[in-house]
């Protein structure tokens, strides 16, 4: 897996409680930064009707989808109950202030 790591950008390129997208051939990946500077990468496609999660409001470790307000957990990609569904997540890590991401989705989500 580790050979897949790519540089995404600096921590400060993403506003706290916000997201930026990485455009890939396989679709956009949303890279989120929480209030506590945790970073998560999630496929930018809501499990409900494909809404762009990167455009949602980030509170704690959740994002509210901008289209119909489903809440998605950033760490697992899973929708908060009672909604059901899951968006693929991607490994991320920090090297200094550089955000690194792998393009190989984490296992566990049928959507990946």
């Amino acid at each position, binding site marked *: 897996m580790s050979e897949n790591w*790519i*540089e*995404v*950008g600096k921590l400060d*390129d*993403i*506003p*706290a*409680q*916000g997201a*930026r*997208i*990485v*455009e*890939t*051939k396989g679709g*956009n990946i949303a*890279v989120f930064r929480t*209030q506590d500077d945790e970073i998560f990468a999630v496929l930018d496609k809501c499990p409900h*009707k*494909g*809404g*762009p999660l990167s*455009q*949602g*409001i*980030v*509170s*704690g470790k959740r994002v*509210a989808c*901008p*289209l*119909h*307000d489903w*809440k998605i957990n950033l760490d697992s990609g899973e929708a908060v109950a*009672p909604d059901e569904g899951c968006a693929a997540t991607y490994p991320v890590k920090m090297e200094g202030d550089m955000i690194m991401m792998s*393009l190989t989705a984490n296992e566990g989500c049928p959507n990946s």
Partner: protein
Amino acid sequence: MKEKLVLVGNGMAGVRTLEELLKLGPDDYEITVFGEEPYGNYNRIMLSPVLAGDKTIDEIMLNDEQWYTDNNIKLHKGKKITEIDRVNRKVIADDGTVEDYDRLLLATGSQPFIIPIPGNDLDGVISFRDIHDVDLMLDAAKEKKHAVVIGGGLLGLEAANGLLLQGMSVTVVHLMDTLMERQLDKPAAAMLKKSLEEKGLHFLMEAQTEAIIGKDQVEKVRFKDGTEIYADLVVMAVGIRPNFELAEKAGIHCERGIVVNDTMQTFDPRVYAVGECVQHRGQTYGLVAPLFEMGKVCANHFAKMGIGSYEGSVTSTKLKVTGIDLFSAGDFTGDENCEELVFQDAARGVYRKLVVKDNKIQGTVMYGDTIDGTWYFDLMRDETDITDFRENILFGQAHLGDSGHGDDNRIAMMSDTTEICGCNGVCKGDIVKAITEKKLFTLDDVRAHTKASSSCGSCTGLVESLLAHTVGGDYSVAPHLKPMCACTEHTHDEVRASIKKNELKSIPAVMDLMSWKTAGCSKCRPALNYYLLCQWPGEFKDDSQSRFINERAHANIQKDATFSVIPRMWGGGTTPEELRKIADVAEKYKVKTVHVTGGQRIALYGLKKDELPGIWGELNEAGLVSGHAYGKALRTVKTCVGKEWCRFGTQDSTHLGIELEKMTWGSWTPHKYKMAASGCPRNCAEATIKDFGVVCVDSGYELHVGGNGGIKVRVTDLLCTVKTEEEVLEYAAAFMQIYREEAHYMERTAPWIERVGLTYVKEKMLDDPEGRKAAAERFLFAQKFAQDDPWEERAKGGEAHEFTPIKKIS
């Protein structure tokens, strides 16, 4: 070591408290529960439908034993606590089981009152309180014929109806001359009695039971006047008594119930009590809604959050007898200072009475068609001044101008496939199924599970009625003052007041001081951002991450994640130059759809986010700026051509509209805000369904407020007529400012005015010219900081991170 919490009484209030506690602090306590009944926790309310054969015991279980295991709760079922040793902090059960506690919760419910007459202990004399009683009744119904129910109240009638459906011949014996005298007035009670007689029940009114006769088993009931009737089964349903024997024995202060304070604490600070067993501010309660409110407050204190307080409840009643619709709440008899509004249609079997004092509803009784029950109840609880719609109030909320989902909303008669929620396509059957299968209690639960009522909200009343109809009681009753959202206990008004008083100037500051339970959510953060911005114009630094995407990106997001662009067209007017520019831009950016909006301007659809700053820059070249079609902000000011061209025009409505728009554009408001100016009463600009509308007349300008099209059409109220354009502008600014300062976030002017009353708005706008002028000035001051075109800023490179990917991988 975790603290130990022991609950005595495995009923509705106690377990509800635990559920609330588990939500707040799942690991705070080691929990033990004692229940005298040999089951998990069930929905006592639903015993009536079980008796009537509509439900089974399995269907009414709320928490089976697995739930206790899953939550690490030790359940001692079938064990009754007989002693509390407060010195050593132990409870002792009838079988000798002993448990220690650090905190104790008493939720021992009530006991049915048994009339002290000879024969009350014979076999076949029972009450109606628990599963055991229902089992006895169902068994009796199999072999026996004659049932006598003593008591013509809620419980007695539900028991009688059930036994009748089980095939028994049933006589209801009642001491008074009307049924349910504590909930119904005479006309409604008479209608009820007639319907129940038609179903086959017999009544003996004003009959005082003297003795129950029989050897071992009941045979007859005898009355004071000497008459006797046959009985194989006697159900006593004459009332309940709070069950506080255990507490009293332990030396805890009790009067008519266990006395508790506003945090549900008894006189022993380690001991709390909730439910029917308590007496709070002199009141005892016998319905679940207040008990659930108590549970919430109590859990809050167990979780050491220390902010909830229980201040008593207003309750309402429904009768769970299929085919009978009745609703009652509050004081429905009134005193000499009250007025009665009555509507009666004997042919349709409909009766409604409202008791009104100082133009506020004190109580209501409804029979036959109860769809407006929840509305009246809300008006009563919120103490809304009804002066402005009093003449129509008896016809129901549908007649206040709702053209959409108004009529024929009789829940019971709807088929399962009737669509209730038009936004999400949810049918009656889906909702009922979710409520029963998933055991939902509140409107929020139903929204979360079915999506019904979660979008535009126009079906909320219907969903509430369905909920009441399906679960029976008054589950749908929301707490007296609704918190902003699940993140806080505070109401919108409390938050606004605190921002002002404590000079809070950032979202984290508000959340800190007001003990937010979470990091906020997509409901409260935009609201807080708005409240701060409105309170501290020029000072507060807008938190764009707390704004919905449309407002953050200054364009409307579409279902395919593209955006639309709608430039302002002042007062609905445009020029060839602007149109040419729009055409050029539409071609250059390959815009998929060009649409003339409902707001008199042109929208371009299907733009990618990173194209937005570019297209804005080009539109700016022709002087086109943001139309804020995406914002809780001033939207459009529609106009007609007015006296400049129209043969009927009385004033220059186009010019006036443009002036209004120039003054107000860029302003953020609690919800979107629309205006219009029509040149004469033909009203071609539809000014009377706008938040602020002007209808020009020969003598000046009529000012109309609080209208909207949309989900529930509301026609404006006429505020006043003024003579000059300057006055129009002053009134417009003042009205908008008062709305900005006082409405709840996401509340349009229409519901705001319905909540506070037109009279209130008139007082501020008309009776207090100084206040009005000051409000207008505050508005103009705030506008100094609001009138920068957000598109121009971004076209020049502002907020670039918002519009560009952080990386592209080809």
